[in-house]
């Protein structure tokens, strides 16, 4: 590897990953992580957003790895995905800003109930938090965590990969946790 630039190393790992080399893929994704975070932290105000978009970028890299051409440099390919995901995130965020404010205000109105009528309040909070999830994510979360279906069964039902289902359920759980804290 001596004399190779970081970009050459990424390119090498990406080509190996395309052939199914999990070790090279793990090294690639872990090596990309600080680069992606660094690129995003300069342009996104909230550190939570940086991590959210970083996760989106990693999933996008996974989904689109087959489009990377080995005769091309890796960084422009990655940068176009980073910029796309960042713009997409901000677009969705500003589109749903009013909704977010409504959800936050709604949560505040139940503060008293949570302490006084614990179970009723919690249930309403959970319903409200579940309702705030994107439709697809809510369905995956409900099927897996409420109705007890396996990731494989949900992936068959939703027409997604098992990994994408797991990631979606995991992210939904994190969002719910954030809302309910």
């Amino acid at each position, binding site marked *: 590897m001596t004399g190779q630039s970081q970009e050459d190393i990424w390119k090498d790992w990406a080509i190996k990953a395309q052939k199914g080399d999990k070790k090279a893929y*793990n090294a690639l994704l872990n090596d990309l992580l600080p680069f992606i975070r660094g690129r995003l932290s300069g342009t996104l105000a909230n*550190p939570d957003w940086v991590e959210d978009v970083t*996760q989106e970028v990693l999933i996008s890299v*996974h989904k689109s*790895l087959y489009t990377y051409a080995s005769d091309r440099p890796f960084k422009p390919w990655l940068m*176009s995905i980073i910029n796309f995901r960042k713009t997409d995130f901000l677009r969705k965020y500003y589109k749903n800003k009013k909704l977010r404010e409504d959800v936050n205000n709604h949560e505040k109105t139940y503060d008293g109930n949570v302490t006084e009528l614990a179970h009723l309040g919690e249930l309403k909070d959970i319903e409200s938090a579940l309702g705030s999830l994107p439709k697809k994510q809510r369905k995956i979360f409900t099927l897996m965590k409420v109705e007890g279906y396996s990731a494989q069964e949900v992936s068959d039902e939703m027409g997604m990969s098992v990994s994408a289902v797991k990631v979606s359920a995991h992210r939904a759980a994190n969002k719910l946790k954030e809302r309910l804290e």
Partner: protein
Amino acid sequence: MHDVGKEDSTQKIINSLCEDLHELKLAPHPLKMALLWMVLGVVYLGVCLYVFEIRDDLGTKLLDFLFVFEMILTLSMAISAAFCSVWMAVPDMRGQKWMLSVPITFFAVLVTWIGLQTLLASYKFPDIHWHNCYKEAMVFGVIPAIALIYFSLRGKTTRPAGLSVMNALAVGGFGYTALRLSCGSDNIGHICAYHILPYILFALFCIFIVRKIYRW
């Protein structure tokens, strides 16, 4: 500072993605897709023109410089937009972003060209009613549109809106050229109402609907 919990979840995502990795079937080169689309389009339009019959005065019209100029212009726009469509299906367009300027320039010239004709020629915009040209416009456009959207979906674009516009220019340019070769009317009002309008509607469909299916 990053939230440690979120960093853990990012690590879990990486592990999960690595678990899910298997040998990938690589996306074909955009040039291959573009050529395939063009061959398919030319053969299809050839068959359509054979079925619908070409205009009676085509021999004479091919000696008309302005008609030939218009045909070359629309066909060039369609071909360059098709090339852009398949290149845009790759996240970084393989570094060929300059390509976008080609169909846009052809489109600008075409709009100016048609605009000048509508200003210079005395024409009356006809009442819109069902016309055979609408049927032909749909037939000429449907297969090239499905093929191009399919080819575009085989990649992962980072420019869904731009890609849908390029799809519209490619299919519209191709269909418009075919309509001019099959329909005998050179009246600019007829051309605007029955040759261009269907593709404007198709462009709106692309911009508002097809764009959404390119999101991933």
